[in-house]
């Protein structure tokens, strides 16, 4: 950075050793060009192939069931492996202990490997902003003990031949049925396994005591007695709960509205060379303002924060409704996420290693804040807000004994 505002002529004679040190040939021009380095990287990396996700109302009631391998946001998760669901502490926010809420899931198969023919990534987070702010500190921790996160990502993968789905592609006309049984889900949140049963009516299931209490207070107290009476006459809840699943109604009012995620490639949105009409009326002051403007330039380029937001806006402007950016390049040079803010970025060196195979992790996709707009999240002081959530996954997409493996999520806040 410049020391004070010396004039350009003075600087041409001086050779101030900058803090970076290695740039030997720094002369006055480099003050101006120094700022270009940040832009450089951005301009050159535009050639990556990015897939965008947009949210849309689901076309039909059955379009988002698990047998159709959907990508969706909000609502309840469509678990790929319906039996071996995450359980225990992985369902809970490590900071406040509440069960996590489903944010979105992404169907991202990898065609090269056989055991990743079906591959789903699920993102859960705690809807409390205080937890998210605490999580900001936790996500930096790399120690031997596990950090306490409030954002969790799960990966599940299956090969083409498996016990849950037929090897035939789904017909997508409403007649597809899921094979096999499913673990019962919590009646309040619809996300986690419902291990605990309501002792009086024996039909309502819960993942945790907290949800049982919430459901009880918001109406189950009344209907519990009714269910208990009517269930004495005939056999109640079916073992695989297929009919309930089709309805997909959950008791909680605070889960986010359900959307389907539509996939489009970013290159489709590139505009044709934008009109150069602006050219005509620009150079109002062509007179010698070179020195003027040169020194103006580096004073008014705005601080880093603004510049990164402006760059982000330009990139997003091609398709302003996007909520997801997917770009996975395992092995052939890692791709970089698009960072909205300048602070709170994760550099490549700081990406942790996979907890199961010890291999490297790579960037897979990022979630953009437009999603909050579609979810109609309130705008109070303490309501949920982020700049971006970046998900890193195992580059080898390793197989482990666990059906749902945890991956790494990084949250960046707008300061």
């Amino acid at each position, binding site marked *: 950075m410049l020391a*004070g*505002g*010396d004039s350009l002529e003075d600087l041409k004679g001086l050779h101030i050793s900058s803090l970076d040190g290695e740039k030997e040939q720094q002369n006055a021009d480099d003050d101006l060009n120094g*700022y*270009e380095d940040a*832009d450089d990287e951005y301009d050159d990396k535009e050639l990556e*192939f990015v897939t965008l996700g947009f949210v849309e109302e689901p076309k039909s009631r059955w379009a988002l069931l698990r047998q159709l391998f959907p*990508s969706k946001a909000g609502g309840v998760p469509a678990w790929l492996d319906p039996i071996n669901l995450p359980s225990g502490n992985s369902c809970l926010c490590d900071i406040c202990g509440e069960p996590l809420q489903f944010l979105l899931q992404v*169907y*991202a*198969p990898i*065609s090269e490997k056989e055991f990743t023919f079906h591959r789903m990534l699920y993102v859960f987070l705690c809807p409390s902003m205080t937890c998210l702010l605490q999580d900001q500190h936790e996500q930096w921790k790399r120690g031997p003990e596990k950090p306490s996160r409030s954002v969790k990502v799960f990966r599940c993968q299956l090969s083409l031949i498996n016990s849950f789905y037929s090897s035939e*592609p*789904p017909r997508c006309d409403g007649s597809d049925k899921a094979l096999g049984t499913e673990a019962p889900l919590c009646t309040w949140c619809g996300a986690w396994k419902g291990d605990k049963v309501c002792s009086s009516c024996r039909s309502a299931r819960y993942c945790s005591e907290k949800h049982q209490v919430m459901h009880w207070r918001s*109406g189950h107290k*009344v209907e519990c007695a009714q269910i208990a009476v009517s269930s004495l006459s005939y056999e109640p809840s079916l073992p695989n709960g297929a009919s309930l699943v089709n*309805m997909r*109604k959950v*008791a909680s*009012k605070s889960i986010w509205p359900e959307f389907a995620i*539509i*996939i489009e490639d970013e290159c*489709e949105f590139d505009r044709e*060379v934008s009109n*150069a009409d*602006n*050219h005509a009326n*620009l*150079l109002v*002051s062509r007179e010698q*303002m070179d020195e*003027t403007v040169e*020194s*103006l330039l580096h*004073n*008014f*380029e*705005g601080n880093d924060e*603004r*510049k990164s937001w*402006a760059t982000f*806006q*330009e990139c997003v*402007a*091609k*398709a*302003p*409704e996007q909520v997801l950016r*997917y770009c*996975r390049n395992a092995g052939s040079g890692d791709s970089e996420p698009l960072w909205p803010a300048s602070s709170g970025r994760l550099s490549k060196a700081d990406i942790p290693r996979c907890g199961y195979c010890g291999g490297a992790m790579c960037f897979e996709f990022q979630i953009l*804040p*437009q999603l909050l*707009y579609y979810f109609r999240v*309130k*705008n*109070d*002081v303490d309501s949920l*807000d982020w700049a971006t959530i970046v998900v890193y996954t195992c580059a080898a997409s390793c197989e482990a004994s666990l059906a749902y493996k945890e991956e790494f999520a990084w949250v960046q806040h*707008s*300061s």
Partner: protein
Amino acid sequence: MAERGGERGRFGRGFGGRGGGGPRGDRGRGRRRPGRREEEEKWVPVTKLGRLVKDGKIKSLEQIYLHSLPIKEHQIVDTLVGPSLKDEVMKIMPVQKQTRAGQRTRFKAFVVVGDGNGHVGLGVKCSKEVATAIRGSIILAKLSVIPVRRGYWGNKIGKPHTVPCKVTGKCGSVTVRMVPAPRGAGIVAARVPKKVLQFAGIEDVFTSSRGSTKTLGNFVKATFDCLLKTYGFLTPDFWRENSFRKSPFQEYTDFLAKPIGKMLTLPEDTERIEA
């Protein structure tokens, strides 16, 4: 490209599959919009402040200035100031960087925006293409819009036309002093600050500067600092006690409206039964 799709048959390609004509067809309607016009009008806010502005809860930029909230989306300024915000590209300058394969030229665009009515901003952006640089610098300029206070020289007739009082701004060794001027005096200043003052909407002003004004970067920054101070100067109009107002995030919360605690402890009155 095609064989990838072939392996999966009619299974959805999911994210990460490249190209493919089939899946695109049945997944969703084509998202190609007819013209650029539609795309530009559709703004999906990215920040909390943007969402409040889009909902219409915030009516003017002054509410944002009052609480010193950072503006991160230029559409906020567009929506609140409206079409009167004009931009002008002052200069495009090619800058070069020496690479092994010759010189790599990029363009730096310098834009000033203002509505001629108390708001002005400056932006600079460098890019490989001129159009991209101009677009980027307009965005940056809109993000840096500041309010300017105007007042009268003498009789309070008509609209305010000059600075309200003598103000001075300093940056580096340059100090710029702006003095109220009578109508018709025009902007008495050097060329570049004159441009900025025109966009700010000041019609008459006398300026006086000291220090090394050859360093025009500092010179213009001092002018900007001066303009910022117009609202910082305590004049007798502000003597009246002002109560603190709630920040826009607190003002528009529905949270305060309902006593949520009550709803949980009285289950009798909530009949929210979900099948």
